[in-house]
């Protein structure tokens, strides 16, 4: 018989090798997959996207900025630009580089796939927001035009990605850029978040962690060079100005109700109490949102808390004649008026 001690040691080695190969994110397999995406076509497409993005925002694009975004050396970036001009995708002038008509439509195609994919992840899957962008970075280079249009049709031809960016139409149309930075608001002014920039990833993760989402109402309280104090859906948030730069806002319409105090959520309803639904938080997306709306949770619906489960969560609510149990995390995203 094999010596048990030796057998255990062999087992430990095999486990360690398997772990080294297949650990998500850090394993060799995951690294190989990531490396494959850094190939030539991906570089070309990423460069085009970056140049387009800067043109859209009216920022000058330089060899250095490309090198910085694509994580390559300036020499490589210069070489890449030469190749792009040789392909007739861009022209170089005194102010930097500019996309040709061909380059423009190529870039828009890539951006369309990227944003459609992000929207797909947000609405149809449970992939967390911090991973939308990196997943789309891979998908944009692999999806064929036919697959892209199938995806678009499947998710209802959306116009905006989950960060609030417009998705170019198949013919390459994009609306003019609107909105301004959160920093431009005066104290006491109301606005709606229309866009949360998803790069750099660390900043985006921090903003998501604060509970911010596109469609949220904000009110500037005050700001200094060190910090910005504002209310988001009535809840006070303090951020560094650098972070707020990633938030784009637009003025709210006249008929929209101004939120001055934190909204009550369904989770705060006590057993036996009744309330009207004000809205479902825009942070609740995809299948869960559709399910709630199918159950009749729409503005104006009366909801009564019926009973708590023996373990305290979920809670059962009377909604339009039916008794439906909801988890606390979801009830907290339904705003009510008692």
């Amino acid at each position: 018989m094999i010596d048990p001690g030796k057998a255990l040691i062999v087992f430990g080695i095999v486990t360690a090798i398997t772990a080294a190969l297949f650990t998500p994110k850090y394993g060799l397999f995951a690294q190989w997959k990531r490396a494959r995406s850094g190939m030539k076509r991906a570089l070309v497409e990423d460069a085009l996207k970056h140049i387009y993005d800067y043109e859209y925002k009216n920022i000058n694009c330089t060899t250095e900025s490309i090198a910085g975004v694509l994580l390559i050396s300036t020499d490589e970036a210069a070489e890449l630009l030469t190749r792009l001009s040789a392909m007739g995708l861009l022209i170089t002038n005194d102010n930097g580089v500019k996309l040709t008509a061909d380059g423009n439509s190529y870039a828009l195609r890539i951006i369309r796939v990227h944003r459609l994919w992000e929207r797909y992840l947000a609405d149809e899957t449970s992939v967390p927001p911090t991973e939308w962008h990196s997943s789309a970075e891979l998908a944009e280079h692999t999806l064929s035009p036919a697959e892209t249009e199938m995806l678009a049709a499947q998710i209802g031809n959306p116009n905006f990605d989950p960060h609030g960016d417009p998705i170019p139409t198949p013919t390459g149309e994009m609306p003019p850029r609107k909105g301004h930075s959160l920093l431009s608001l005066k104290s006491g002014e109301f606005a709606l978040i229309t866009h949360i920039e998803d790069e750099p990833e660390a900043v985006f993760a921090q903003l998501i962690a604060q509970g911010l989402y596109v469609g949220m109402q904000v009110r500037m309280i005050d700001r200094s060079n060190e910090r910005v104090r504002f209310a988001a859906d009535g809840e006070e948030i303090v951020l560094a100005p650098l972070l707020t730069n990633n938030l784009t806002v637009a003025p709210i319409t006249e008929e929209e109700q101004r939120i001055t105090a934190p909204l009550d959520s369904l989770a705060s309803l006590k057993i036996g109490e009744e309330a009207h639904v004000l809205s479902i938080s825009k942070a609740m997306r995809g299948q869960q949102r559709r399910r709630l709306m199918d159950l009749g949770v729409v503005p104006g619906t009366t909801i009564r808390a019926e009973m708590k489960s023996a373990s305290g969560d979920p809670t059962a609510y009377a909604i339009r004649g039916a008794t439906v149990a909801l988890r606390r995390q979801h009830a907290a995203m339904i705003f009510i008026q008692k």
Partner: protein
Amino acid sequence: MKNRLKKEQRTTTAGKESILSSANTLRWEIGEHVHDSLIESIYADANQIASRAVTLPDGKPRFDFDKKLDSLITSRWFGFPLMFLLLAFVFWLTVEGANIPSALIASLLVDTMHPWLRSVFVLIGSPWWLTGVLADGVWLAMAWVVSVMLPPMAIFFPLFTLLEDFGYLPRVAFNMDSLFRRAGAHGKQSLSMTMGFGCNAAGVVATRIIDSPRERLIAIITNNFSLCNGRWPTQILIASIFFGALAPPALAGFITAGAVVGVATLGIFFTLVVSWGLSRTLLKGEASSFSLELPPYRPPQLWQTLYTSLIDRTAIVLWRAIVFAAPAGAVIWLVSNIHVGTMSIAEHFINFSNPFGMLLGLNGVIIIAYIIAIPANEIVIPTVLMMTVLSTKLSGIGNGAGVMFELNEATAVADVLRAGGWTVLTGLNLMLFSLLHNPCSTTIYTIYKETKSVKWTALATVIPTIMGIVICFLVAQIYRLLFV
């Protein structure tokens, strides 16, 4: 005339273009949440129509009885004890109630019909191998599956359906949800899991009640960790031989029951752990949502329930099991009777796989039994006994090569197994491996039918098998380090 036509054409093209361009600008104006507004307006319209057309009778508050019952069933103190009592009662009724019909069916199909069938075959002059394959192989395998499987299922499923029909089971899911939420699963998985204690194939079908794709996949893949009724007899037999026998006779029954319940509880633990792991890795991206409707209580419809649970659940599952068990019976007979050189194929394989089996604290007989008994866990023990007799050349026990048998006395089984070289470690690891191995082929087929995905079916098959191999291996090495 011509000119006028051209002019009109020009104006219509201009009109078309202006419409298109305004549509293009409006596309970006309507915003992201146009679907929400549509649903809201549909509800508003429906409300308006309903308020004009529907009148509600007024009277005392509805569901008075429901509310009282609900407050008891979901109460902090009584909710869980009530649930455990009720489920324990259902299991007890199943086990106790199934004993007598099981023995009756076994004596009819195995003890009476099998010899009779053999004699018929001999009478019509069929060659010995045909008699062997059909009467000893196919017939016995089917007879075993029917006698072990049918009575518990015919009792368990109607009871379960009655509880469901009454409205109690959704409350169980409601109470259990917070535990399953922490494992990344749905409260209703507690129901499909419990159903799995009856039969995994039925448990997999029962996951249809889970309407969220990710949580449903989790429930399907982990259902195999519920000890099904094809495995309970194995557990009880082995526990009484290897653990019950260790204790003084007065405590033997208690220790046996404790060991079996321990294995079943370990299964629930693995269900939760694997659910947790899956929801955070492989199934992280699958769409997920939660809502759980608690229907009003209804008096159960007894006859309809009996009919549907017997036809929909019992009959279908039993039929599939028979279809899969029949060829397995033929294979078992053939591998034990076709000789290559001086030994049968089965003996060759047993010798070949024995080192691997020993490494896992099992043996070659168990490995081959689990491979050819993939179609049905019910025939594992009969196969193990037959193969042990075959490979150790014991005489006077059993009915010959390829003819599965069972012994009425646990002590007689123990003698055969000890003669085959079994130790406490073999018994323990067989119990663990019986819990953690691939689902039976009926369940695998059902998983494929439910998921329509080769990937998830393969995963549901491979995960428990790898877990079983790894855990048996570790237990064997640690046991040998400590006790040998």
